[in-house]
């Protein structure tokens, strides 16, 4: 029996209606009884269209949103029951890479500052000296295929693919076990996307990471993930092994999504 890394148990999230000058807007059911579990060391894909609740679920896992009901457990620890200090310690083990590498790096911070910031924040857990942090920063950059000559440059000097590598280095800084990847390649060109996907595969093999991969690009999910869940309007429609879902989708929604996927093949 493999260890469960992340367990989402019957989670619902309702955003209450807002009262404005034109009346009250209805409440939004962003997540409805979502349950799924991610095993240690696997890549789990979450696929859905815009507005389906992917981001709400991701934010809930980081405990940036509190679910209305249900519980989220990371390695058995229930996020809703942890104190601030315990949450901070937990967050060093759960990190995220965002979609847009142009927006998620502070233009005023050098690569060194960006990559070592998590080390400073998680000082209590990691306990590194300044010297060790510098070494760690260089190590992280080489891990993502960049060099220590890049340490003292600023984000604007890098291409989109390199920036996404910096984002990955920052996410890996505190030595996480679970990495949330929120559409990490959708802002990149296909050739660069291929490089980043290969890097992610390589890092997973080397560091034994668990990926929670959010995407609307089915081809990328099929390539990278072991298991996949499809989410539509806040509900999980289908989940299972990647190969099984792509070859024999059970639900109408999955068939529709897979049918709409633009494949590069000679038209019939």
């Amino acid at each position, binding site marked *: 029996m493999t260890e469960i890394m992340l367990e989402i148990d019957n989670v619902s999230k309702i955003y209450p209606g807002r009262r404005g000058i034109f009346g009250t807007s209805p409440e939004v059911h962003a997540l409805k009884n979502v349950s799924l579990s991610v095993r240690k060391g696997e890549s789990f894909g979450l696929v859905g*269209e815009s507005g389906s609740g992917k981001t709400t679920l991701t934010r809930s896992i980081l405990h940036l949103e509190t679910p209305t009901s249900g519980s989220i457990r990371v390695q058995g620890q229930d996020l809703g029951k942890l104190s601030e200090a315990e949450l901070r310690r937990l967050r060093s083990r759960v990190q995220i890479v965002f979609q847009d590498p142009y927006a998620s790096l502070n233009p005023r911070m050098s690569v060194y500052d960006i990559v070592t910031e998590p080390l400073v924040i998680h000082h209590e857990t990691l306990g590194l000296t300044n010297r060790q942090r510098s070494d760690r920063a260089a190590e992280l950059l080489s891990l993502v295929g960049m060099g220590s000559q890049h340490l003292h440059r600023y984000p604007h000097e890098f291409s989109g693919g390199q920036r996404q590598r910096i984002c990955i280095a920052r996410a890996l800084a505190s030595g996480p076990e679970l990495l949330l990847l929120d559409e990490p390649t959708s802002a990149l060109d296909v050739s660069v996307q*291929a490089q980043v996907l*290969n890097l992610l595969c390589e890092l997973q093999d080397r560091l034994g990471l668990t990926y929670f991969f959010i995407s*609307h690009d089915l081809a990328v999910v099929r390539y990278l993930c072991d298991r996949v869940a499809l989410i539509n309007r806040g509900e999980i429609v289908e989940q299972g092994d990647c190969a099984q879902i792509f070859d024999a989708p059970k639900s109408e929604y999955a068939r529709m999504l897979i049918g709409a996927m*633009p494949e*590069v093949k*000679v*038209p019939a």
Partner: protein
Amino acid sequence: MTAPLLSIRDLHLRMSSFDGRAHVLNGINLTVNRGEIWGLVGESGCGKSLTGLSVSRLQPTPPAHYTAGEILLEGQDLLKLSPSQMQRLRGKRIGMIFQDPTTNLNPAFRIGEQLVDVALAAADRDPEVIGCAPNAGRRECRQAARKLAGEMLTRVGIPNALARLDDYPHQFSGGMRQRVLIAMALIGRPDLLIADEPTTALDVSVQAQILELIKNSVKDFDMGVVLITHNLGVVAQTCSHVAVMYAGNIVESGPVAAVIGNPVHPYTRALMSAIPTRETRRGELRGLAGSVPNLITPPPGCRFAPRCQFAQPACTTAMPAPVSVGDNHAAACIRVNEMEALVDD
């Protein structure tokens, strides 16, 4: 023999910047006939959008500067037209759809008004568009244009179209807004439609519907389409022909079945192997090393040579001319004929 709908001949475009002049389009040749959907694909910064913007002359000069070439719309050189002559062609003969449907609709006006405006502008030139007599009064024209706007919205698949004419853009979803923009581009019955990444901001299911809609419109209106995209999957699904661009050049062009079924240019091959398919196994995806060259000081000879795994010394001496490799299928590479043997190794 009649002139082709659109014929771009040896188009060169320089762009002035603080660092110097960039050679962003470097001899583009492209011919589009009625009934054809041409896909223009390539990485960001390779000149796809500039080619599209050049055809509709929406690229301000300066900073842009056309140093050579011509863009012929049924024999008429668009680069020689005055701004007001050009303005009369837009909306009527050349329709455009842009990437982001949110920023291309005016949030302060109802959808119906925006469609009617375009229809009336087109009717100035050709009253038949809205189907009323040349001497009809303004009120009559407006009513006819509104009726047409309703018909167009129904045609692009907006339910309850007549009632929705009085809605504002924010009352539509992203996919619906893109449909409104397509209706707006088609309302003047253009001969040529330029669609610049029309589905990049949309979900796959909506994307499939929009592409289907463009395909059907080509049949209904007998027009030619230039579809700019970075997604080869979209090209395979929609287009009849494809031109692959790299750093301001068309490196390979031809019918979709030929180019995707048998890509001969190393760049096309690299692009295709960078996309994960059903058969690609984990860790075996092949990326393309390096990045698009600096166009202020482009590499000598073939611009793809520095990233090309088959490059030879001869590649850096002169820009390769397109070599025909089949029916209407050409690639600009000096090693085209050796390619099959090279790939097998």
